[in-house]
């Protein structure tokens, strides 16, 4: 997608979420109320299928485009599982299976459940070298301990379609897509909490002036801004690598994005809470709607530790002489 088209799309998504998402919707979602109006508008915009090519009812988005959309979604707290549904549709299309409409649950091996699994019409999973589409049967309802959003275990129905996983996706495609989603959502939510903290620091007065005028507070928020920028770049880089080389060959960038975004989530959440002090510790203030999601997302689809071990072990096996050449060759080989 051209830069111009992408920015139009991102503006549309931003506007939709600004109008229809917000703290009230997030709170109701945590109480188990599906944001029907928001989801309906997303379907009307063609977002859930957007990663599929036009002939399969999609918009031909790339992973890079999708990461940009997910970052906007994260900025608004991701009240609906749009990212997961988009990725599931994208995987199906890449395997040659036409994605059906409705919420497609992305099954990531080892994860405790599916976000809003009770609402999933179909499930997409990888096993035995194949990508499988099946109807979602009964869901065992649960909720995530951090985000409080529905996290359900779904029974798969009989396969509706199955196709070999193409090499570009690889056997771990759902896990890689899931990790990329979490990184992008984190990058977006980090922007939101940084904005919130800057606004608060500029309005909250102590000692006769806004606390944002104190260097101690400025230094903290500047440090947070560095982490926020790093997470955004890491997520975008993962999306670009997946677009160019396929998900399987983007493992290093996806892992890096999950590590960098996960580390940033922990550091920035600590800083924005420190800046907000007691009011940010209350249920009433909306800060926790975002910081609890940050803590949830950094745990999902592989923690920083898991992904760091993976790329670290690979680098150790390659040895010191290959370290710098490998780091610089990844992009250049693909251009």
């Amino acid at each position, binding site marked *: 997608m051209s830069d111009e088209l992408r920015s139009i799309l991102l503006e549309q998504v931003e506007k939709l979420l600004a109008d229809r998402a917000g703290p009230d919707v997030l709170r109701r979602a945590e109480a188990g109320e599906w944001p029907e109006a928001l989801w309906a508008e997303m379907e009307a915009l063609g977002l859930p299928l957007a990663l599929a090519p036009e002939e399969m009812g999609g918009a031909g988005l790339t992973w890079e485009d999708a990461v940009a959309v997910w970052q906007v979604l994260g900025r608004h707290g991701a009240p609906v599982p749009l990212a997961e549904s988009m990725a599931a549709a994208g995987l199906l299309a890449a395997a040659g299976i036409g994605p059906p409409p409705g919420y497609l649950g992305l099954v990531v091996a080892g994860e405790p459940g599916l976000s809003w699994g009770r609402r999933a019409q179909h499930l997409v999973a990888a096993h035995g070298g194949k990508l499988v589409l099946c109807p979602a049967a009964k869901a065992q309802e649960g909720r995530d301990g951090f985000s409080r959003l529905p996290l359900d275990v779904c029974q798969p129905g009989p396969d509706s379609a199955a196709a070999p996983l193409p090499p570009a996706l690889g056997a771990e495609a759902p896990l890689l897509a899931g990790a990329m989603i979490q990184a992008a959502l984190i990058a977006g939510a980090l922007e939101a909490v940084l904005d919130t903290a*800057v606004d608060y620091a500029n309005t909250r007065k102590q000692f006769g002036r806004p606390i*944002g005028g104190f260097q101690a507070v400025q230094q903290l928020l500047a440090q947070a801004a560095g982490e926020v*920028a790093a997470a955004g770049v890491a997520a975008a880089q993962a999306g670009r690598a997946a677009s160019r080389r396929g998900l399987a060959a983007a493992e290093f960038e996806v892992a890096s994005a999950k590590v960098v975004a996960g580390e940033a989530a922990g550091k920035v959440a600590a800083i924005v809470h420190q800046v907000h002090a007691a009011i940010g510790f209350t249920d009433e203030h909306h800060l926790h709607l975002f910081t609890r999601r940050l803590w949830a997302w950094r745990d999902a689809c592989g923690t920083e530790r898991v992904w760091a071990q993976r790329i670290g072990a690979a680098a150790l096996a390659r*040895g010191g002489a290959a370290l710098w050449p490998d*780091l610089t060759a990844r992009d250049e080989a693909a251009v």
Partner: protein
Amino acid sequence: MGALRFELRDTPPDAPALRAELRAFLAEQGRNWSPTVRAYSWMGFDRDFSREVGKRGWIGMTWPRAYGGGERTAMDRYVVLEEMLAVGAPVGAHWIGDRQSGPLILRLGTEEQRREFLPRIVSGELAFAIGLSEPDSGSDLASLRTRATKVEGGWRIEGRKVWTTNAHRCDFMIALLRTSPAPDPRAKHQGLSQFLVDLRSSGLSIRPILDLAGEEGFNEITFDNVFVPDSLLVGKEGNGWEQATAELAFERAGPERYLSSLPLLTAALDDLRAEPAAAETVGRLLARAGTLRQMSLSVAGMLQEGKTPAREAALVKDVGNDYEQALPETLRTLFDAARTPAEVWEMQRMMTMVARSYSLRGGTREILRGIIARQLGLR
């Protein structure tokens, strides 16, 4: 105001060929670089090496051919810089001229200055020092007091500059000096000007200052009635603060703001195979290196487009300094006296000492974060 944007950038299409050339050159040149030399990295000064770099067209790469430059892109230049830094090459003799003094002369110098200085920077003949800090003016740079007074045909300089890395080995400095009194204490940014100063001028004395690592890295320079001709004023009289601020954008924008300690990771990696805890730590370091590299490339791309990404550079420098400073400490937790080779320990020791400078040179962490905070809209 608000969040800074970092668009993803690619290295240029000819990067692989350029890298191959550089790697062969650096392998040959670097045969005898000790772990201490590599740890000192771009503070290391080796004129012979810089001349060899110059011969290959890797200094002033982006400058017009008329001044000896290569008219290559900023991204080509980026590839050269990062390859040098990745192996800890002692690039100090040409680094400052290539990075900031040359670009300043190119943008604001007179035609005569360009013809006089740029070709000799390009060949690696002419080494530049930075003339900003003074004994009483560090982070509060605009409070500087070294003064240039107008005389017939030129200016007379009185005062002192300090922390000028490698000045005793360099040929020229671009000095930021007070040429007229500040109209009031809050307008101290006014009345400053920049001059090209010959470091062998009469009345100029240079006293090397030993650093904590035992190297003669930086200096104190005393100006005792030093004459500088009118022809060596750079840019506009009184415009020195704006010029120096733009110069700082160049100074802060490069890959040396996150790569200073990377040679240690390369050197230590093979030993760490025997260490069970290494994979996670190495993975975290690599994830950040790849991300910082892309952030740094993004700033290089802005420079390429002729922008002055001062705030973006401050942010990347801050995040990058944290990274390069923590790296020797982090790796140390994985070292083992009985196993880790002596050369790796040597580099680690040197870097532990030198790393203190990473978050000081080119603007302290606290000053950078002040710039970022203002960009965020904090006041």
